[in-house]
């Protein structure tokens, strides 16, 4: 991993069109400004990790399709008709 020291208002470039600016530093919190093309997806890493983990969790749902369909009947009783 490349480690760079930066001061307030300094920035780094990633490639030609992504710029990360240090906008504010308070205690142990750093505010970053990110300038990037619209097609670059920017996410907090922990959100992505949480969704990955939940996907793995979901795949391990062990339920047989008949039991699952019975659970679905709860929706039909409520009058919520699926499309």
């Amino acid at each position, binding site marked *: 991993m490349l480690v760079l020291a930066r001061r307030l208002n300094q920035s780094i470039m990633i490639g030609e069109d992504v710029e990360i600016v240090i906008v504010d530093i308070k205690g142990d919190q750093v505010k970053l400004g990110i300038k990037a093309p619209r097609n670059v997806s920017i996410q907090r890493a922990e959100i992505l990790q949480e*969704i990955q983990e939940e996907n793995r969790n*979901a795949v391990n749902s062990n339920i047989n399709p008949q039991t*699952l369909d019975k*659970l679905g009947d709860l929706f039909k009783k409520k009058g919520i008709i699926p499309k």
Partner: protein
Amino acid sequence: MSLLIDSKPFGRIEIDDRQIIVFPVGLFGFEKYSRFALIEESPDSVFKWLQCLEDKNLAFIVIQPELFTSTYVPIIPPSELKSLKLTKIEDALIMVIVSIPGEDPDLMTANLQGPILINKKDLIGGQFISRDETHPVRKLILDNKKTPERV
């Protein structure tokens, strides 16, 4: 055109090729799997299965979120919708992935933060991150009276 596939919930079944959806970049944590079929027990099944065609043991249970939450609209940047050849979210079929704990199915949850969006016309799908941070990764589907929690 119909074809035979091996599925985790139903074993070998016949599906229509219009049920096959290509996920160009897979799902989060499952990036290398790109072909899935949307299958169901019967046409009016509430829960459906997103069955991977490349691995029989990989199948997600999915549900349309409007069946238990009437207010949910994921916030997805238009630049990301473009990857599905869509310009607005209203044109997408929205499904969310369900996790069901083996010991107590009533505690099933849906992932509202990472919805699956599908372009039904071009049969392309993707998993996206809703920018509304109030959308939880684990939203209880049934309330304690065992009815769908519709708020």
